[in-house]
Each structure stands twice: as structure tokens, then as C-alpha cells.
């Protein structure tokens, strides 16, 4: 089945007010992702594709398209390596329909 889809195309339909330079989610210790986490499930399970595996084992996190669901934090059970807060009031995803 050919269902190749770029997540960017989906997120493009959404409305965001990005808090430039103040991401609301952070990786606590990048070394843990790179060296201790084998599954790196955040790169697959994040519904907005905010986490990408870099070639060298490191994880890159860009929160601009975040849907604020909490998945990345909840699935990081082995290492609890995601520092997760809500964006500042008024910032982040702004659902038009929800």
C-alpha cells in the first residue's frame, strides 16, 4: 500500500503561535538518548514527528509542530529523559476545530 506521507503536510494545516527560542519540551541529557536508549521510540511514536534520529545516534528535537499530547514524556519510561511543560500561556498549538 502506498501511503507514504510527510507529517509536515499534515501539520501545515494547523495553526501555531511558536514561542521562538523558548521550547516547552527539552531532552534532559542528550547522551542518554545517544548511548543508553536503544529503542528511541520517540522518533516513531511522536504524532507530530518532532523527534528525529541523527546519523550519529543523537536525537534532534524541534517542538514547533508539537500537538501537546504528552506521548514523548509518557513513553520515555526507561530513562525519563524528557522535560515536559506546557508552553507559555497563549503559545503553541491553537486548534481551530479540536
Amino acid at each position, binding site marked *: *500500500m502506498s*501511503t507514504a506521507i510527510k507529517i509536515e503536510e499534515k501539520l501545515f494545516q494547523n495553526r501555531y503561535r511558536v514561542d521562538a527560542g523558548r521550547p516547552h519540551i527539552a531532552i534532559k541529557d542528550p547522551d542518554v538518548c545517544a548511548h543508553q536508549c536503544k*529503542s528511541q521510540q520517540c522518533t516513531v*511514536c511522536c*504524532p507530530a514527528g518532532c523527534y528525529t534520529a541523527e546519523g550519529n545516534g543523537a536525537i534532534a528535537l524541534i517542538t514547533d509542530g508539537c500537538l501537546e499530547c504528552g506521548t514523548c514524556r509518557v513513553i520515555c519510561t526507561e530513562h525519563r529523559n524528557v522535560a515536559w511543560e506546557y*508552553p507559555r*500561556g497563549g503559545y503553541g498549538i491553537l*486548534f481551530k*476545530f*479540536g
Partner: protein
Amino acid sequence: MAEKFDAIVVGAGPSGNAAAYTLAKSGLKVLQIERGEYPGSKNVQGAILYADALERIIPDFRDDAPLERHIIEQRMWVLDDDSFVGTHYRSDGFNKPPYNRYTIIRAQFDKWFSGKVQQAGALLICETTVTDLLMDGPRVVGVRTDREGGSIYADVVILADGVNSVLARKAGFRPELDPGDVALAVKEIHFMPEEVVESRFNVADGAGVVIEMFGKITQGMMGTGFLYTNKDSITVGVGCMLSDFKAQQCSPYKLLEEMKAHPSIRPLLEGGEMKEYCAHLIPEGGYKAMPQLYGEGWMIVGDSGMFVNAVHREGSNLAMTTGRIAAETVIEVLAAGKACTAGNLSRYRAKLDDSFVMKDLKKYRELPGIFHRNPQFFTDYPELLNRAAHTMLKVDGIDKKTKEREIRRTFTRKRSLFGLMGDAFKLWRAFE
């Protein structure tokens, strides 16, 4: 001296709005804090509104609430790769006012509900995130926000801050969510002309259809898909346990894309224009995953308290009911001139135990565990059911008795006779 309120409600979703409305209407001084641009802008739901829970709060809500379609037909589909076996229940009884349930669009509905809350006298501040609870020893005495000089005090703080409830977690009122207790749902909304929705689903005059689905579309994970008709749009989505997404290393948006490509689903979306993609966690752990619900100066309502009946796809009605009952408890305590101590707020739990909320959640307490341990209900059975239908309905010169024997054989081959009996017993236990 910072301003002090009788109650602060964190969040303006169904539970927060129900709580704030009930409190304000009784004359209490209420502050509600919402982090979104407006109430609804951070909120995601399927979305079905069950009239009863709202009617108990705002009896005449139908006069001006933004409702999409009243539901007159429920379809239940069990899907294989390119087929489904389904039941439809359609009744003209559901097509007579007052209607029992509606599809809604949350961004519009929550804004409307919030308007009622403000009319009732509550003060609403938007675009403000509550960052911490203010404590005096073990007692919650207010909240700190991300606004300047953001400390505000109240006799009681009601946490209606949703499934992630950062506040309850930080305060130690509940542990981090377990991936086995939450479902991750993703969905899209597709717009098309009203006439297309009505002809495609055989409805008219504001009536609508919902389709609940399970089987191959969740690719072996425990979960369900759904398709709801709105006025001039269709909502389509799929949700599975987060632990399953993790174990299977499955991408949620690919799962949704593949579901939309199913030959029975694709034609229903044909020609629609996708205008939004959402994701949300649903607390489905049920009775056994429920945290402590009240304490010294605080209460938890709605999704943050895990109030979702996953079996019946009910959540917003539990949210509104818990919000209302929490508020009623506070009103009684304050009217008696008492403080909002854990002891005095314990009436909240007692009232919930007496209501459908806890009775239903208790009834299905074993169900999440049973489905977790028995994935065949989402894999083998949908396949067996579809193939049985195919065998019986295909006219090919083979007599029906032989076909029946063949079907019986496929069932016992897949699950064994004891397996089948065991599964029947498990289902009976789960739904008993």
C-alpha cells in the same frame, strides 16, 4: 495583599467549565484560568456530546449551543484488510427532540460553554499557564501562573487541567501516566458540502451517523477507529494504547493514513478537504488507574482524574459530571462555614461512588487488563469473522453445510476449542 477567591478552576474544558459554572451560579467568587488563546483552543475530542450530562447543568443548552448533528445511527464495524462485518442501529426514536447525543466541534463548543460560565459570574483569564500550586504545608492555598505577579489564592483549587495534569504530577498527587493506561488518538477533520455528507450517510435535516471500528485497522494493537459526521465535515481518527504504539514501534500518522486508505473507508472521505490534524492522549486505565481525587484544598475532575469509560466511548459526560459534583461538594462545605480540608472534601468521592461515574468504571474495571493480555480480540477474531462472512456469502457451488464445517475448522485451528471457550469466558467476565 494578593486577591483571594473562593475557588480557582484550572482549565476550561468540559470538566472545568462544569465546575466553574456550578460554583459561580451559586454566588461563589470563582477564577478560572485557561492556557489557550480562548477556551477550546487546546482541547481535542472525537467529538460526541451526550446531552444528559450537560442538561443537568444547563437545561436549555440546545437553544444556543453550537451542535453539529444529532446522532440517529450507530454503526459498529469489525474490519479485515479489505472488508468489514458490521452492525447498524438506526432509530427514528433518536430523530425526535430532545435529541440524546450530538457531534460537536470542541473549539466552538468550549467557547460557548465558557460564555455561559462567564455569564454566571466567574472571572476567566486566558493565555495564562498555571505553573505551580501554592502550598502552605500540606495544604493547597492557590496557584502560581506564568504572568507577572502571578500568585493567586483561594479556599480550594479544582484541577481540570486535562490528561497530562502537570500540576497534579508536580505536587505528587498522582504518579506519571503509565503507557498501558493511556491511548494515543490521532484524527483529522475533512470538510465537504453539507449535501454530500447527508447523501453519503443517508441522513437529512441535521441528523448524523457515527461509525466505531476495530480490527485490522489498528494493526494488532489494542484500539479503535472512528468516523463521525459533522454538519459539513467528517472527523476520522484512530486510537491505540500507548504501550502498544511503543512495543510495535508504530507511527500514529501512518496508522491513520493506512486506515483512511481502507476500501470501505476511503469512499466516505472522497473529495473532502483536510483542514486540521490533532493528537491527544485518552486516559483509559479505568477504575484501577484512578489517582487520589481530593486532598487538603484541592480536587481533581475530568481527564486529569482518569474519568473515561473506554468501553462506551464516554469521557466528556464524565468530565462534566465530575466537575459539577466537585463544585456541589465545595458549595456545601463553604455554605456550612467549613474549610476545604480533605476530610470535608471527601464527600466528593462518596457522591461519585453513588453516581453512574464510579458505578460504570467499577463495572468495567477488569476490562483493560483482559484486553491487554488477549490481543486476539483485536487480531484473530476480526479476521475469522470476516472470512466466515466471506465463505458463507460467496456463491460457488459448495453446499452450506460444508461451508459451516469449514468456518468451524478455521475458528478451532486459530484458537482451539478450549481457546474459544476461554475467550468467551473472558469476555463474559469483562462485561459482566
